[in-house]
């Protein structure tokens, strides 16, 4: 029983690794960033558990800034992922596009990576402006 589970786990691990190896490099960079942010959050939580949460504002803003960064990066990753077909330009922009160039109506296109990154930067800006307010 235990051996079969171990084997399964190994097989799973292998297939996960091979599947992950296929992901594009830019997504891998984002993943690294997410892992870094989450581990920073964990370090802070562990520190809080040992030392205590006395300046609660700094603990709160520290942990939430890490989690927030991770969440936003995950959002960015979802949006720039080519395999994700959920993000289509909205109707109006398709129409405008169509009028200009006359391509067929069902030419829906993905959210451009530039747009996704601009949103990501904006959201991060707001997040860290808020975090700054917790200083002191």
């Amino acid at each position: 029983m235990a051996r079969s589970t171990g084997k399964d786990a190994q097989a799973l691990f292998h297939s996960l690794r091979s599947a992950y190896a296929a992901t594009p490099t830019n997504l891998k960079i984002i993943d690294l960033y997410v892992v870094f942010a989450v581990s920073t959050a964990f370090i802070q939580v562990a520190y809080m558990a040992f030392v205590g949460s006395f300046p609660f504002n700094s603990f709160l803003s520290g942990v939430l800034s890490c989690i927030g960064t991770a969440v936003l990066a995950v959002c960015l990753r979802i949006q720039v992922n080519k395999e994700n077909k959920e993000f289509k330009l909205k109707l109006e922009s398709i129409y405008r596009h169509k009028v200009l160039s006359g391509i067929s109506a069902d030419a829906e296109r993905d959210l451009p990576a530039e747009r996704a990154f601009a949103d990501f930067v904006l959201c991060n800006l707001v997040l860290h402006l808020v975090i700054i307010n917790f200083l002191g």
Partner: protein
Amino acid sequence: MAAAETFHGKTLRNAFGNVFSFFILILIGVLAFSIRLFSVIKYESVIHEFDPYFNYRVTQFLTKSGIYDFWNWFDDRTWYPLGRVIGGTVYPGLTLTAGTIWWFLNSLNVPLSVETVCVFTAPIFSAFASWATYLLTKEVKGTGAGLTAAALLAMVPSYISRSVAGSYDNEAVAIFALIFTFYLYIKTLNTGSLFYATLNAIAYFYMVCSWGGYTFIINLIPMHVLLCIVTGRYSSRLYIAYAPLVVLGTLLAALVPVVGFNAVMTSEHFASFLVFIIIHVVALVYYIKGVLSAKMFKVAVTLILSLGLIVCFAVMAVLIALVASSPTKGWSGRSLSLLDPTYASKYIPIIASVSEHQPPTWPSYFMDINVLAFLVPAGIIACFAPLSDASSFVVLYIVTSVYFSGVMVRLMLVLAPAACILSGIALSEAFEVFTRSIKFQLPGASVKPQVDAGETSSGSAIPENDVSKTDKTEDTLKERPARKNRKKDKEPVAVEKPSIKSKIEKRLLVLPLEASILAIFLLVLLGAFYVVHCVWAAAEAYSAPSIVLTSHSHDGLHVFDDFREAYAWLSHNTEVDDKVASWWDYGYQTTAMANRTVIVDNNTWNNTHIATVGTAMSSPEKAAWEIFNSLDVKYVLVVFGGLVGYPSDDINKFLWMVRIGGGVFPHIKEPDYLRDGQYRIDSQATPTMLNCLMYKLSYYRFVETDGKGFDRVRRTEIGKKYFKLTHFEEVFTTHHWMVRIYKLKPPKNRIRGKTKKSKSKSSGISPKRSGAGKKNPWH
């Protein structure tokens, strides 16, 4: 070629429809604003009621002293001798909004007074709220439904009751913020754009600034997310709509001083964190599922499940331990009274004593949302065909708000937008069905669909009304498939073929011509009833400022301006630092209008202090004098409606004073004031009742008015007619006796020798009093 032509026709029609709906929206905004002006026209441009006076006073302070002084404001003119930290205990959204408007207008050299800005803030924001409703409903069901819902919301009586001109209260801006936050959430959910998610968090911040009702948002959205996950509707758009909102929203909420760290410490917010964890687990599962093959995924599930369950239990245990360690299980009293409707009446009389915290009666539903109550079920059905993420949100919204409105009459306000949205959907769907069936049966129209399209592109041949109608139907037809994210596209290159096919398909669903004409007529009639009712409610029922009262009688209109008379008297005839005691209802008004220090006010943060005043009011004269004297009180203010029949006076509120006082000081017992469980003030009343301070201050010299002492509110002759006050003296009574102000007599000099004996003979209590006078530090 033909395709391009029809396409151009469609864009032209689209543009025309957009312009049209833009003008409709402007008109709706004007309607929302102007229907709320009845109170200004019928009375005058004044701030209404109780809480708005406090907000007005805070706004005045803000405009005078600036934002930094506002945050640090410690108010020593209220809750004497404790004072109150206003900057840290007030929801600043409304004040900051009005202050900003005032500042902006003044910088444009428009010299409006602060009061004018405050009076008109609510109507302006109700126009914004109806536009936000349009946006929200448009996201759910298309433009037609959006316009209908906006028009309904512009004049729904429930919302009017809280946002007439002069009703300068948190709800005035909070409803706009609520709807707008929901709109941005739905928008993010539909588009999956991080930009809207950011805006959503900021709108949520504005809501947290404005009203304690923000907990409704932070619980409703997680509920919807959970619902989506459970029903298998998880998508990465859902993740983008929810996860950034929780992180950013929590941080932003913690910035508002009145919320502070409660945003992460109280149970009201825990649901969002729990769902935040769940959505991450689900997101991870979906990701792995996408990466792995089906067989490997199964293996992974069995492995992860055993591991994940342990982690889940650990997290749950930590959460439960956290919650259980706080005394009220982390819930504040008001939230608990929402979950358990009997909680307030059992434990917190001060919450139960406010009439707007009582459960509503059935007629109040009809009064407040009128025909919408009957349209809502139809709207719910329309939302289920077809069910999308957005429409399921609306359904969830109405279900929860119906429950909350059933608990507290005040939360009817949260129900109103939901009812408007669903009724708007129902009405527009009904109109769409009926107009479509008429259109297909009219001679000529059914001949060729292409002709129809060509004609519209020329535009002039068809009357405007018709264009807008076809436009609406077209719009909804177009937008729905896109919204549902259906993979099959209904509008490929060849437009004619599928459209004909779909039209034939639809012809099978056509209703008889006569029936649909009749149905449209009935629907228009229903709408007309609604409009008539709303205008009536706005003009008659909800526009009274309650600071100025009017009554119609056979000899014309009477105006009772007693409150302002009394407050003006106080501000002109008393010292600046004199303390005025009254029941807490009149605290805000006294500080704002008379500018005198009060003992308690409508911000009921200190129950003991209120109980002290309640005890004083329900004690005999001497004990009351001692309590008031120990609080430095110079004047006592009571509101008395017995002469003119004003029902919400202090005698009618008196039992609450007894209850609240008795809750802290057990020597005050409610049964002492009741004769066989009945509250009465006539000759059958108990001696405790007839000797308490409230009775005496209310009915002092009352018998002189008509010789009998007939109380027109209680419809009875009073029990004790001739009595003298020993410790208080009457200093002012307004024109209609509605407000009576008494001054505390200074303690008498101690008298020795013979005179003392004769004094003690004349009244039994005087020796005791001289003893009390000795203890008294004030003398």
